[in-house]
């Protein structure tokens, strides 16, 4: 385990288990998973289909409830054989950013409001939320499309907007589910460059689930998951 990561913890899980079903039909999707991701770090999570990647991401995202284990966000214990926070939706809104394989932007909101929506939902004034959204869009070089609707953006632009949305509430953690899958090599590496820069800039812990071999060399650390168990490996950590 990385000592520096312990000092300024982003997200940490210990002994996480998830079982679907009961009795003979029970499936152990996660068995004793341990993981730690420091602020500013981008780690990869790879594994074959059915290995438990999505289940782990859903548990980390407080979307489904694990069966057992413990989970911390910063110094806050979130899960200890049961959720300690009742309002999981508020927990997700304020602490976890999501980037999906498809951007899933809200089609009837323009780019700025897609990004500003989360802070608005958290009670930030519209003007302040939009101003923050514009800063993020400028950071991600899509400020020129601020008033455009998602349907008029290219795939790469949409993905950058979805990253901006994930960062909008300045969450300590971002969970990215195959964010480069629909993109060609150049654009995929472009997205990784952005994620690395954002992690560094905003001190965000980012976990990237991927099948995409072309981005694997960009991770400094990689978690392999197989049959519900994780194995950590040092990555090449190449500049994307």
């Amino acid at each position, binding site marked *: 385990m990385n000592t520096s990561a312990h000092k300024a913890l982003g997200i940490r899980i210990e002994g996480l288990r998830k079982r679907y079903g009961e009795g003979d039909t029970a499936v152990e999707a996660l068995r004793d998973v341990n993981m730690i991701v420091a602020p500013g770090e981008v780690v990869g999570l790879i594994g074959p289909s059915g290995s438990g990647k999505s289940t782990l991401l*859903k548990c980390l*995202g407080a979307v489904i409830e694990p069966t057992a284990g413990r989970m911390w966000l910063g110094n806050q214990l979130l899960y200890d054989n049961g959720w300690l926070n009742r309002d999981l939706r508020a927990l997700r809104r304020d602490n976890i950013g999501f980037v999906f394989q498809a951007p*899933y932007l*809200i*089609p009837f*909101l323009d780019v700025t409001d897609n990004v500003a929506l989360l802070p*608005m939902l958290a009670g930030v004034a*519209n003007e302040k939320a939009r101003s923050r959204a514009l800063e993020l869009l400028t950071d991600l070089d899509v400020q020129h499309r601020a008033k455009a609707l998602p349907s008029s953006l290219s795939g790469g632009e949409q993905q950058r907007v979805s990253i901006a949305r994930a960062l909008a509430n300045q969450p300590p953690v971002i969970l990215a*589910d195959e964010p480069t899958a629909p993109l060609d090599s150049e654009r995929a590496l472009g997205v990784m460059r952005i994620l690395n820069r954002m992690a560094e800039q905003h001190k965000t812990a980012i976990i990237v689930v991927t099948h995409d071999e072309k981005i694997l060399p960009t991770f400094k650390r990689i978690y392999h998951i197989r049959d519900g168990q994780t194995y950590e490996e040092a990555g090449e950590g190449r500049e994307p």
Partner: protein
Amino acid sequence: MISLAGRDILHSWPKFVLTGMGLGLLIGVTLSMAGIYRGMVDDAQALLANSGADLWVVQKNTLGPYAESSSLRDDVYRDILGLPGVRRAANVTYLTMQVSKSGSESSDEVRVMVVGFEPGQPGEPPYLVAGRHIMRSHYEAVVDIKTGFVVGDRIRIRRHDYTVVGETRRMVSSGGDPMIYIPLKDGQETQFLKDNDAIRNERTRTAANPTLNRPGAPGLLEAIQSSQTISHNVNSVLVSVAEGHSATEVARNIERWKHLQAYTQAEMSEILIAKLITNSARQIGLFLVILSIVSAAIVAFIIYTMTISKIREIAVLKLIGTRDRTIAGMILQQALGLGVIGFMVGKTVASVWAPIFPKYVLLEPGDAMRGFVLVMLICSIASVLAIRIALKADPAAAIGG
């Protein structure tokens, strides 16, 4: 916080507006149905108010003259005039029939109520919008403008041609048929005179009857035959009550001493509204209920399909922390928005097509307000299914497989 519903509506406004217009036409039909009922009630009240009478005297044990047939001798009014509290009393006849312009095809016929009245007495049309009142004893007519006839037209009623000398308005029967006013004697003839063949047959039958054609009674047969061709019946006597007398008291007096039926305005109104148009009212009421259910089903279906089409976005909204009430509010606001568009379109089309209806359609602001509240209620209820679906959307669906 931005309005998600408003943005969605703006984003797909053509779909929304077209759907709202479709719903609006349905709401327009619903409002028109309510207007038709109100029109029927108003027609009935106008019929009573415009007759200038305080009492309707009719044949005993009948609801006449509008609800049941009633026949009285035309000299009864003299007896009534002698009773205390009676200021004026006048005979009237009513007959619903088809009339057309003289010499025109039968396809141009108009269904009307022909009223025989005595000029200057109760039963006369209270005002004219064109022409003059009837001044001759025969073959002049005043028509309601809904008949389509105008001053100078000649119309055929039974055997005679009548010249239209005046036009009035809002004079319709309880069934909505416009009225044609003609002199009382003509009205009696129109209603009771038989055709020539029937008269000849009747005369032959009377002459062959030895009781009526007695050799020792000269002039008897002619007198009987003459009485058979002249009508002395009317349908009702309209009475206006003298000041200081109660219409109810005078009505009960007439019933007691003259063995007739007398109805006050309130009683006649009760007959027209509660008895005569009650079935129509029920029919319209049931139709309104069915239309409301159909509207609710349409709104529910539209909102449901609109919600299903963005279920993935709703799952993402839930995943990133949007509260249930925000999502439910978005769907509810869209349903209400649809209702508002539908109501505006419905109110507009109902107002536009109301004058085209053959019967009077009265669109009351109160009904419109009640309609609006009902539409909002229906839309709210109709959005429940879509809200349930949206709230059941699994935020996990946005992640992985």
